[in-house]
């Protein structure tokens, strides 16, 4: 009797095999339907002559689309800009996230408020953020320009030139700089949370030992903190790089890739070409150019994270 009762209590939760599949199921379906299928569809599209008007994948053209895209003058620019924006954002984000985590790991008055302020960009919808940044760097009403003018850095006879405005979104390097800045601004909270999690997991003893051993702030940072943070920094940079490299929203909402193709990036170009321009197959080809970069980046970051980890605390 009691045996039967006990055995009847073995439910689905006790069968690890079944439970595993059940819990993995939703994400497997999600990945297959929304990542895997579009990916293979993109490969298929890229070797055809499909357009938005005729999205059939019958007209096989081989690598023609890739060759076509490679020959366009926008391609090297978009590739260059994607790399610049990604690297620029990555470096700035990592430096700032490390600095912020060093700050937030300490106790001080007003820490809570600062935490909220630092996390805020993350909670902001992209559209609101875009309005924010469009106004801040507006060609005529930019408060940044206004500040610069009042500091006599901008305007006639000043270091930044005679013009009264900098026209951020209308110039190649200022535009790229603005895109990098906005990316840093929106990704910093997430990166900081990752780095801070790593920072707080380093035992406090180690830092006090370093203090007793006579290490100052910078020696502690470079000899103790950063080496210990390396695996988590790799994870943070992987996330940041992948999010920036594949992002078109910031460019689309600010410079729109202009002037000309001067601030164009691969994902936005792929979108413009494939969806706006209707050349579905060429858009797919552009998007696929990003794939090897993203794949190699992800593999490298994961491998480095594992390697540094196995050198660490495991015997």
């Amino acid at each position, binding site marked *: 009797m009691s045996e039967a009762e006990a055995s009847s209590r073995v439910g689905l939760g006790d069968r690890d095999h079944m439970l595993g599949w059940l819990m993995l199921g939703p994400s497997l379906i999600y990945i297959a339907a929304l990542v895997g299928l579009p990916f293979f569809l993109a490969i298929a599209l890229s070797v055809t002559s499909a357009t938005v008007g005729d999205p059939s994948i019958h007209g096989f053209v081989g690598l023609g689309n890739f060759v076509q895209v490679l020959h366009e003058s926008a391609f090297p620019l978009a590739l260059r800009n994607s790399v610049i924006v990604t690297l620029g954002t990555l470096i700035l984000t990592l430096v700032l996230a490390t600095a912020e985590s060093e700050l937030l790991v300490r106790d001080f008055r007003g820490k809570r408020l600062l935490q909220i302020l630092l996390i805020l960009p993350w909670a902001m919808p992209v559209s609101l953020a875009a309005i924010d940044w469009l106004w801040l760097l507006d060609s005529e009403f930019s408060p940044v320009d206004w500040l610069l003018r009042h500091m006599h850095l901008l305007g006639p006879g000043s270091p930044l030139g005679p013009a009264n405005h900098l026209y951020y979104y209308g110039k190649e390097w200022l535009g790229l700089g603005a895109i990098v800045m906005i990316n840093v601004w929106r990704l910093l909270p997430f990166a900081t949370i990752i780095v801070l999690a790593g920072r707080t997991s380093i*035992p406090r*003893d*180690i830092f*006090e*030992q*370093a*203090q*007793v*051993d*006579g*290490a*100052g702030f910078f*020696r502690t940072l470079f*000899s*103790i903190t950063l*080496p*210990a943070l*390396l695996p988590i920094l790799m994870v943070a940079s992987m996330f940041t790089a992948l999010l920036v490299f594949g992002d078109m929203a910031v460019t689309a909402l600010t410079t729109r890739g202009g002037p000309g193709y001067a601030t164009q990036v691969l994902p936005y170009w792929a979108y413009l070409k494939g969806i706006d321009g209707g050349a579905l197959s060429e858009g797919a080809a552009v998007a696929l150019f990003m794939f090897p970069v993203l794949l190699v980046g992800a593999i490298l970051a994961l491998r480095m994270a594992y390697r540094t980890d196995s*050198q*660490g*605390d*495991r*015997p």
Partner: protein
Amino acid sequence: MATLELRGIKKHYGSIHAVNGVDVVVAEGEFLAILGPSGCGKTTLMRMIAGLEMPSEGEILIGGKPVTHLPPRARNVSMVFQSYALYPNMTVAKNIAFPLKTRGMPQAERDAKVAWAVGIMGIGHLLHRRPARLSGGEKQKVALARALVRNPALFIFDEPLSSLDAQVRTMARGELRQLHDRTGVTTVYVTHDQLEALGMGDRIAIMQHGRVHQLGTPQELYDDPADTFVAAFLGAPPMNMLERDGRIVGFRAEYLLPSTSPAAAQDDALSLRMHISQLEFLGAEWLVYGEIENAATPQKLLAKVPPAVAATLRVDEQREFTVARSRLRYFDPTTGLRVRDERG
């Protein structure tokens, strides 16, 4: 090598008084053990000596120089943490060289110093390993070498043996004391383990509630506790304590013997009739659990007797036990303080 002076040290966090007025002078080359239950303030006191916390009140002098508000690196104090706090990303050699590197010592000089410290600790074969690949005992040796390498004015140990296996611990205790004797560095050793304090300390400071209850040699503390806290904290088992004539009478378990045993005190002895409730084998001796039944409130007593004597005892029998009056210590029942008038 230097003296350490603590003058009226206090530390409070809000309304919590972690350390509440400590005055201690540690002589040059002395090994001082700070002993106390957890939460007694010993760790806070130690952290103030190292410079990791600033005292709310009072003064700290190392080698006669006031260092109260100096940061740790300006004190030339070495510290060994309970966890050993080895830098995980550095090899053993780099760990040991780190305190020298921070003071900008040139490479050649550094190598010589590291070789010297490594030689003393006998860890030459570990130099290129990372801390993750060391055993507990090896980690301790590396931490000691790192503490030793810079000729510190003061060693501070924070329960360095508590993460070792019981078997290794006795050995490590001996090695630590030998290291101190060989280098002659003034040492402050914080522990909650009385065996470590009794076995290694030249003197022991017993702390509770942020105060030093008694400061003295292990023998003084054991034989002449200053109050009931020290009497009850020190020794395994702690002192027996009885209420007698408005005072607390304390005596050690090893002085309480059956009146029939040859070693028992005969003249001028306190005699107690005890009901034996349990006998416990401890190896070299037996522990006798007893109760005095004729007292108003039943009082429990412990006696530590040699095996030959234990053989004559039976559980559940009534026996006469005696303790020499010279072994009795009297305490005030309200303050808990030792009463010097022992004949009264």
